[in-house]
């Protein structure tokens, strides 16, 4: 049931993306409200899907929050991205930016729902995941990741506009100065949430494995991501081309986010639950 709803949500996000592209090309303002309405519809369905999945796990007698395997994490990741996308949509200055955020949410949902490698079944929790820290750790990490994704989308647009001959399309997008501010703000939000994620993870590791920091590949990559964003936030105070440095470091940070999230599964370590 929940997986059916969630696969429908995927297409609703795709529709919202198309409508926002049409708005961007034709400049028809009423389409903006329609994009917002469609995105909200998708988000409501998405939230309902997650809640239903939670209930269904209790019906199976293995109740747990839907945050325990790769499928659930992808769906939740997409959910957090849409949360930020809805916040951005409310800001007038950020007009048009959502067109670039929505496809990311769509891609995550599509990968989760339709990739043959991903098991969509509700599975029971293995002993290592049976902890009250699971929910806090996963929620803060993914909200942090999502804010980084949003910051990276803005960075991408910033660099697009920073070329010698920015295309015609980029003229309809907010000015570099505004973009820089949005990159910084999203990166800061991501940084605080991700720091909380690392700290909750450390507390959990202390109870589960006996050490708050064990240089497990996932932990190490989280630290690498944190270091890159620390550098990105400090880069504002150095040099002339502040916006460009911030944007480039944010995009490097994003690569590190994805490696932290998915890439480490190919390295040996303790965080290998996502592999299945």
């Amino acid at each position, binding site marked *: 049931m929940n997986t059916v709803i969630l696969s429908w949500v995927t297409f609703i996000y795709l529709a919202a993306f198309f409508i926002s592209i049409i708005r961007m090309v034709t400049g028809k303002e009423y389409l903006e409200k329609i994009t917002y309405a469609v995105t909200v519809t998708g988000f409501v369905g998405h939230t309902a899907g997650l809640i239903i999945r939670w209930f269904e796990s209790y019906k199976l007698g*293995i109740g747990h929050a839907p945050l325990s395997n790769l499928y659930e994490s992808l769906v939740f990741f997409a959910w957090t991205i849409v949360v930020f996308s809805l916040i951005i949509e409310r800001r007038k200055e950020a007009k048009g930016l959502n067109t670039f955020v929505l496809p990311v949410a769509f891609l995550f949902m599509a990968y989760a729902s339709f990739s043959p490698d991903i098991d969509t079944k509700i599975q029971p929790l293995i*002993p290592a995941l*049976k902890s009250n820290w699971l929910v806090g750790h996963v929620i803060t990490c993914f909200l942090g990741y999502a804010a980084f994704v949003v910051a990276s989308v803005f960075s991408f647009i910033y660099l697009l506009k920073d070329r010698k001959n920015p295309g015609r399309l980029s003229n309809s997008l907010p000015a570099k100065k505004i973009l820089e501010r949005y990159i910084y*703000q999203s990166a800061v939000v991501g940084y605080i949430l991700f*720091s909380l994620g690392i700290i909750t993870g450390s507390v959990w590791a202390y109870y*589960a*494995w006996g050490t708050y920091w064990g*240089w497990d590949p996932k932990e190490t990559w989280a630290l690498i991501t944190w270091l890159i964003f620390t550098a990105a936030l400090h880069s504002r105070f*150095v040099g002339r081309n502040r916006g460009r440095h911030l944007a480039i470091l944010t995009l490097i940070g994003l690569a590190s986010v994805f490696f932290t999230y998915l890439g480490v599964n190919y390295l040996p370590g303790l965080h290998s639950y996502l592999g299945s």
Partner: protein
Amino acid sequence: MKINKKRKTGNKIWSMLLSLRLNITLLIIIALASILGTVIPQGDAASKFIPHLRPWEQNLFHVLGLSNVYHSTWFIALGVILCINLIVCSIKDLRSSWSIAKKKILPAVPRNEKAYTIVVPGSNSADLGTKLENILKEKYQRVEKKDSGGSIFLFGEKGSYAKFSIYLVHLAVLIIILGAGFGTMFGFEGYAEVAKGQYFSKVYTKDNQLKDLGFSVYCDDFQIKYYKNGMPKEYRSDLSFLVGNKVVKKASVIVNHPAKFMGIRFYQSNYRDYPEALMRVNYPGGTRAIRVREGSVFKLQDQETFFHVLRVHKNLMGMGPAVEIGVHSSNGWVQFFVLENIEKLKTRIPNLFQRFPSLDPSSFKPYTFYLDGIQDRYYTGIMANKDPGIPLVGLGGITIITGLLLTFAYPQKKIWVSITVNNAKGMDVAVVARGKTGDTNPDRAIKELLEHYKEGNIEYSHT
């Protein structure tokens, strides 16, 4: 800051340490170095991998400590330089922030921020200045006004103390690193395997040293529970902690729920099942029953003779369960098999021991071994850790989040307003604002006032 010009090289090093560029460079270098440890096998995995390398590569591995990157000298050195840079940068920055906050000086107008400029009619700069000052006083905690012959300069600032919270974040990072160092120096991480009905009082630390706990831990039970689909549901070790021979505490240790005894935390780490052989040994003057597993070493009557259990076979080449024993004595080394089904084999195969001498359980005289069976026995893996750095690290964690929230969530803004009387046109007004997260808009009330002024509505007053 005053710099002594005589110490030029000292100055260079000093200013390098002071720089934020070094900080960013270090952050990136440490990030890159951290990647190394995730792609190069570390610790035990490295010791399996190193023999396959060429000699010069092995040397490089040892010199750079690549089998334990995160504890290598150069990695720690990078961390130390980062800490020094952090301390030096923070102190320098703190001094200037402090003098600004203490109202000793006004911060300079940022040059790269675009100013909002407007020309308003009239020449009564004092009146306009007072009106703007009143608006600023409502919105900003600190407002300064300077009047220099008709030209008026206003400065407003809010959340000026919130910016000190960034030093809280920097301090927190140092506290965490200090706590980690403290824990490494004065704590330990130990491991022991124990089966139901056994006890341990020593644990193996990471560098394979035996550490005495000062008490003993008895395993009352070890259980694994499964879900219907076969996935593991729970690993549980029921432990008793004994001081002397007295049980002081009983606790169940499951994953995510450690037990604490005398400052040491005990964790359910893993489990292993070892095939265990139930054996008997006959010798002149007695018989003895023993339980052994692979790797066991035992002595019988003679203190100079060591019996090594080399292998425990559940089925040795179709002949059933078998144990391979090696005996080290003053007469040298003897190696033989003890088979459970030896009697049956003897009747089936004539002259068995002549053809296969190593199957003779009496190979080492005067002992004769018998194998009564092989059982799987579960051993629970228990971690025993002590980390006196935890309070510091915990404090650092809380401080870092508090500091980050104060730094970024607390509104901080500075505003600079200048009014210059330009007799030909009226008054030139320029407003520059700078908020924490890049908010460069002058407050709406200021804009409204100035726009009304421009339209000649000088009686406009802000409500």
